[in-house]
């Protein structure tokens, strides 16, 4: 059974087509790297996978079930996923309340929450930061808190929208290590949008190339970079693409 299966999907913004996918399958437990130029539909795809937006046409199957219009069902599915955005948008409160947010809205309270938050902060190498105000954190720290905020939920799917785009090498390393750890330990399915091809090479089991609102190519990462089938993919990888 696929984690996600998408058929004949189309998404428009103000009458303009921003994403068109004939068929896409994402397997459970894999890390997918999505690369491609800006404006190619990468973020839109993540928002559709996170069920934050609805397609204008087509079907999304999540763990074998058709995702419907019904908000209750969408919420239940959404609560098994989490997303890290390019900008770490933290709530203007303490680090603790940020990390505990998702647990709180799921009705979890008390000592168990405290423990989970401490563990998550530990994993992102920010132990003891609970009482710090989010606005006092550096960019790298904030993004690590944003990651802890999703990890604490133990999602089955983690969607990452260029989470390291504005981070220094140290913080990028921490995030990458964690993502790999989460995938190996918990079998979390990851979809990672990145501008950094080396990052996709390092982390992804499979890589997809999204160009002009379509998936041009999807292959096992090694094969993708060594012998791409599509000339557009080849040009992009070699940095020769003009867009």
């Amino acid at each position, binding site marked *: 059974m696929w984690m996600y299966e998408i058929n004949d999907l189309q998404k428009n913004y103000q009458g303009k087509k921003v994403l068109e996918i004939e068929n896409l399958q994402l397997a459970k437990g894999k890390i997918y790297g999505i690369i491609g130029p800006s404006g190619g539909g990468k973020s839109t795809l993540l928002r559709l996978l*996170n069920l*934050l937006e609805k397609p204008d046409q087509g079907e999304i199957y999540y763990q074998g079930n058709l995702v419907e219009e019904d*908000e209750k069902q969408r*919420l239940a599915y*959404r*609560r098994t*996923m*989490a*997303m890290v*955005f390019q*900008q770490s*948008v933290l*709530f*203007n*409160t*303490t680090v603790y309340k940020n990390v505990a*947010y*998702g647990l709180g*809205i*799921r009705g979890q309270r008390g000592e168990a929450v405290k423990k989970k938050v401490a563990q998550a902060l530990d994993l992102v190498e920010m132990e003891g930061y609970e009482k710090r*105000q989010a606005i006092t954190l550096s960019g790298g720290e904030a993004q690590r808190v944003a990651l802890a*905020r*999703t990890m604490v*939920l133990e999602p089955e799917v983690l969607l990452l929208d260029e989470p390291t785009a504005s981070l220094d090498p140290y913080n990028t390393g921490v995030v990458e290590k964690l993502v790999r750890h989460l995938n190996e330990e918990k079998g979390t399915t990851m979809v990672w949008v990145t501008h950094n091809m080396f990052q996709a090479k390092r982390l992804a089991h499979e890589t997809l190339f999204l160009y002009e609102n379509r998936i041009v190519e999807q292959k096992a990462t090694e094969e993708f970079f060594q012998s791409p089938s599509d000339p557009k993919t080849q040009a992009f990888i070699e940095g020769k693409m003009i867009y």
Partner: protein
Amino acid sequence: MQDMLVGLREAWQLLLSLDEETYQIILLSLRVSGTAVLLAALMGIPLGAFLSLNNFWGKKLILNIINTFMGLPPVVIGLVVYLFLSSSGPLGELELLFTPEAMIVAQTILVTPIIAGLTIAALSGVNPMIGLVATSLGANSWQAAWAIIKEARYGVMAAIVSGFGRAVAEVGAVIMVGGDIQGSTRVMTTAIALQTRMGNFSTALALGLILVLLSFLINLSLGYLTERRGR
């Protein structure tokens, strides 16, 4: 200048003397304006949040109406409430005219658009990603809306404080629907107006100073509460 100094001294004496009538006036002011602000907040904050977080046909018109009502003169509200509550009015049977309840009604009408308008302004300053992030973390639409309101808590608190300031300081509406009846509907502003008309400037000034002091203390404590709740 002399009046000011005498006023200051008298204010101090009034507070210390525990004069029953003065305290009654202060308490009624707080009760009427406090209740009105509470009711206005219960209506104005959800209204402001709804208008801020949703897009629908006719929204601009409603925003314009709220903006207009934010500056509505208290006497006009007083007049309308008076007409509704007077014995020949549609709500005359309730016999509310010249009671503190009538004053609460008038001030609630005065303050609700102010709180709603300022809530809209506060929410428009919140990072638009906040709602999306909350939703992606599993919030339902209510929880996401609450996350946005919480981000704007300082602005929303400022809306409540402004509403209270406006309510406790207005005289036109309460004098029309309350009637400034001694021992029953006399509040600080109507007492100040009366004392000034009677030439008792120092007493009027004393009451004015107490009014300012009270507003200051309430602002201070609300600000403190917001700060603590946010942490």
